């Protein structure tokens, strides 16, 4: 006689040690197999798009910092590129080099956070997390030297970068470039060959390349599924066309591939920073832009390859000092739409791991 089982619906609530941020999922299980996932978000909505309509273009930069609070330079960069496109301003060369250096440093920070928390979700008792955060501290000290803050930086301005870097910054940056590859090797020794990690993450949470393209996924998740698409190569902005780097790609699109892609991207970021440090020259860092920018009437879309995916801002201007419409194309929100497909049919433990490997940031999802 077959046993009668009953599916159970659990609410993985907004307060939970492992949903990164305030995210709620209603999951229906049959034993350990997941039958249905319904994500509920909006707990961190702050109305950024509406608030931006009341602030001048320079003040909106402080709003964009707080979208993906882990990778604030990339947010600033995307916004500033959009406004520069709208107003037809060209930043000076040195500003573009500094922007690229800082954006790549921010990518390393974001991937360190993602990897650390991914391993925390796997259950490694915060040890790899502490190692990743130890290196993140050093990068945040570099940012503090540059612009006085560590997380919400507001470093970029329309027409360039806010202020030039002090001489100490270049020395510290070179030291960092010297010892960071050794630390990434240490993480790989600790984690990549670990049999438990392999058994847990290989073959779980598979996202095929075709599904990814159909769902508009972008970022490391897309590349781990085997699609060769990186905005720094297909639509280069700033000086990405003058530096050489590879775009790591996965084959299968499971959690292990996503982890490997992020680690490989960290190494490539170090390579880009080294080349920029070699190529940079003296010069001004800010174009002559009035304090209250008034772009002509029109619209523009500026996007960057952020650490979580393609972050884009669509700005409509009506000639005044504040944007008329400010629309954010947030990568985490769009990547979240693939979550249900990845999770149907897998187990409870895999759900947490898959969600962790997608690196969703609720500040971006809810804006």
């Amino acid at each position: 006689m077959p046993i009668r089982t009953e599916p159970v619906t659990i609410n993985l609530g907004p307060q939970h040690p492992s949903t990164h941020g305030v995210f709620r999922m209603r999951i229906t299980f049959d034993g350990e197999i997941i039958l249905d996932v319904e994500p509920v978000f909006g707990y961190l909505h702050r109305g950024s798009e509406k608030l931006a309509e009341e602030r001048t273009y320079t003040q909106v930069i402080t709003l964009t910092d707080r979208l993906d609070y882990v990778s604030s330079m990339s947010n600033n960069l995307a916004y500033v590129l959009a406004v520069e496109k709208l107003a037809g301003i060209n930043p000076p060369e040195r500003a573009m080099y500094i922007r690229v250096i800082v954006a790549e440093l921010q990518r390393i920070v974001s991937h360190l956070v993602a990897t650390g928390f991914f391993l925390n979700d796997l259950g490694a008792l915060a040890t790899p997390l502490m190692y990743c955060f130890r290196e993140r501290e050093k990068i945040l000290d570099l940012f503090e030297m540059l612009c006085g803050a560590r997380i919400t930086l507001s470093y970029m301005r329309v027409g360039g970068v806010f202020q030039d870097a002090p001489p100490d910054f270049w020395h510290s940056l070179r030291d960092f470039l010297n010892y960071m590859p050794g630390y990434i090797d240490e993480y790989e020794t600790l984690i990549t060959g670990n049999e438990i990690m392999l058994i847990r993450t290989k073959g779980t949470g598979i996202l095929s390349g075709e599904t990814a393209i159909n769902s508009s996924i972008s970022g490391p998740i897309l590349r781990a599924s085997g699609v060769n698409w990186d905005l720094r190569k297909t639509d280069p902005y700033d000086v990405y066309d003058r530096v050489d780097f590879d775009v790591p790609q996965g084959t299968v699109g499971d959690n292990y591939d996503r982890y490997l892609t992020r680690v490989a991207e960290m190494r490539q970021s170090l390579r880009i920073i080294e080349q920029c440090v070699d190529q940079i020259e003296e010069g001004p860092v800010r174009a002559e832009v009035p304090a209250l920018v008034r772009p002509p009437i029109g619209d523009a879309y500026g996007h960057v390859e952020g650490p979580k995916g393609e972050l884009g801002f669509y700005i409509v201007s009506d000639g005044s000092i504040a944007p008329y419409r400010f629309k954010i194309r947030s990568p985490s929100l769009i990547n979240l739409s693939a979550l249900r497909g990845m999770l149907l049919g897998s187990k409870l433990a895999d759900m947490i791991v898959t969600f962790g490997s997608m690196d969703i940031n609720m500040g971006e999802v809810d804006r």
Partner: protein
Amino acid sequence: MEPIYVPFREANSFYRNLYDLFAEWSFWGVSPIPDWLAYFLAGFLIVFTVVNTVVIVTTIGTWVERRLIGRFQSRVGPNRWGPWGLATPIADAVKLLSKEDTRPEGVDGWVFNLAPLVFIVSPLLVFAVIPFGEGTYIANLNIGILFIIAVTTAPTIAMFMAGWASGNRYSLFGAMRGVAQLVSYEVPMVLSIVGVLLLSGSLSLVDIVEAQRIPFIVLQPLGFFIFLLAISAEMNRSPFDIVEADSELVAGFHTEYSGMKWGTFQLAEFIAPFGAAAIITTLFLKGWDGPLLPSHLWFFGKVCFVWFVLLWIRATLPRLRVDQIMALAWKFLFPLGILNLFITAAQVLVWEDPTTGQLWIMAGINWAVAIACLVGVSQLMSDKLSTRAPLAPVPVKGARGLREVR
């Protein structure tokens, strides 16, 4: 009067001496006190000393564990209360005692309250049969190991009681997983112990220690490995701690407990590694034996070393998924345990009373078998366990090479 109480046959002579001391007392006009009372007082005193020593060592062990895990993670552990943070366990105890003892609405009263007590009985009972030094033990049961195996199954019931009585779905999930895990790992544990028993010829722990001319870890590498994994799983310690996976089910079967009841669960969880380390020391590492230093010190040192290895494993490895844990028990450890048993039984049959030279030959054969098994298993699982190549070629023109961290 010749006492016929059973413990006198098996317990230490110290017990008998204490009984004799108490039997001379007079109390409240009753002279001398009845011998059941003297017997009880003597036993109580011995057990009181041992249990308190174990609990005090455990509380200091919590401080050491948190400092060591901190150092593994490149940070300092607790160092605020007292010099070097030594008063942290006291602070923890005071905090737990002063918390509200919550009792959610749908709980099953008696079962909910009794679960912590049942949980803590088992790790403490283990210490009743282990020799702490030469001739120092509470009771030398001639079925010592069987007693330990029986007692280490008690947490299964306690876990289920806690999970069921909490009236919470998460707790029930955790309890179900825990029961499945504990029951599955009994079998490899017993199989590896039987290998040791064949070599020593007796179930009593004191005899096992004395029968080890060469420590059994050398003679039974496979048995040691299986026992280490099985006892880690029995204690719900990383990498087998799905039962209390913080990142998935909040806290498993003890989610709804607060205050000192939760403190009792945690205390039992901290005493368990010491108990496991004591068992491993007695069975595989020659117990209290060692040159020069007094035997109690050797025992303590070996227990601390095994405890450190368990802690090291806990601090490094991520956890396994529940079906992988079951697969590990039934498909990996169980066949290996049976293989170990056959080989050891064959060796004992051939060499009835082995000399030291023959023992070394046995050790060689066992190590060869263990390494062959390991290589064989890795060949079988090679597709699941192979790492993928790095996804981008790293050094090219213009980029600096990698350097090792100092």
